[in-house]
């Protein structure tokens, strides 16, 4: 019969197992977390915002706002329309909740974005832009461009 471990030894083993498990899990979450986008200059990027019955268009010849979110922020400052968003620490990223007075959930519609017609699968501030990209924000019921009323 194996000797019975003391409470102290059991505690040491439990803490060691927990530290390894927590470190491993934390490492895994960092690996799966979409990477941040370093700031660099992009040329000729365009922004189209399709709301409920209104459209905002904006273009920038040269900018360091090289994500789908920062380009929206730039347009918001330059053209004077309001945006609202939430910043999440874990997982890191922003969620746009309102543009120009239209808020998520109104009429079952939500703000979603596409870059060159490719659906944005990561937080908008994690979506890097390249030269001549077109960012489209739609206040839509549909998902990935699928039909929606």
């Amino acid at each position, binding site marked *: 019969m194996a000797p019975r471990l003391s*409470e102290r030894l*059991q*505690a040491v083993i*439990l803490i060691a197992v*927990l530290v390894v*498990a*927590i470190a491993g*899990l*934390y490492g*895994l*979450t960092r690996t*799966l*977390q979409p990477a941040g986008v370093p700031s660099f200059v992009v040329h000729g990027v365009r922004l189209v915002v399709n709301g409920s019955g209104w459209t905002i268009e904006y273009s920038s010849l040269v900018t360091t706002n090289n994500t789908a979110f920062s380009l929206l922020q730039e347009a918001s400052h330059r053209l004077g329309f309001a945006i609202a968003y*939430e*910043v*999440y*620490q*874990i*997982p890191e990223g922003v969620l746009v*909740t309102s543009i120009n007075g239209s*808020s*998520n*959930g109104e009429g*079952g519609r*939500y703000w979603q974005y596409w870059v060159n017609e490719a659906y944005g699968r990561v937080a908008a501030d994690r979506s890097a832009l390249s030269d001549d990209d077109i960012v489209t924000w739609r206040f839509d*019921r*549909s*998902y*990935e461009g*699928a039909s*929606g009323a």
Partner: protein
Amino acid sequence: MIGTRNARGTAAASRPGWRGVLSAGLGNTRTRILGVFLILVAVLGTVVLRDYANIETVFVAALLAGSLLSRWWTVLVPLSALLILQPLEWGMNPTYAVEAMAGISFFVVTGFVFVGLIGSRLRPKVLFRVKSVALLTTISVPLTVAYDLWTAFGEWYFLVRPLGVSFATVLEAQVLFTLYHLLSSLIFVPLFGTTFLFLQAYGWPAEQSEPVPADSDEPP
């Protein structure tokens, strides 16, 4: 004192009327104090950690309520905490329709109550021992995954299914959040588990004690 237990619980059954029922349901003074503490841990921890998705303390409070306190606290702790937290959550994020918010709240509440009920099944094995902390921590892993699957289904059904998103897509997106939730459980269950097991064993003297046989299975 060896072989003592609080008289309130045992006397409650024979006490007539709603006071007896209340007394039996809420347990002795120590149990009540720990129950209120667990509600505070659930609410304050989750509010403080609000910016960290799925790093929360309701899960550990529900698990400890079931495994340490049982009785009404199994349901009372998660329900009371969520009664405060859910309106706060939706109040700060009024972005969804009332129907969707109510639907998701249903999945969240039943999920945490389920955690408490599973915890109550462990109660006879939970004492102030390293083994008990290890048991609670181990059981928290599959419970966290089960809770996340349940609430992911609720979010899919009420929030994104109308957008045409498949449940598989939701599960794929859920992976990172579940890993964070597991991280939360692996940190908070041993931390608060040890603290509350200690408090339950040594925190407060029983209000009224009566001698019981030394081989009683009641916790001290």
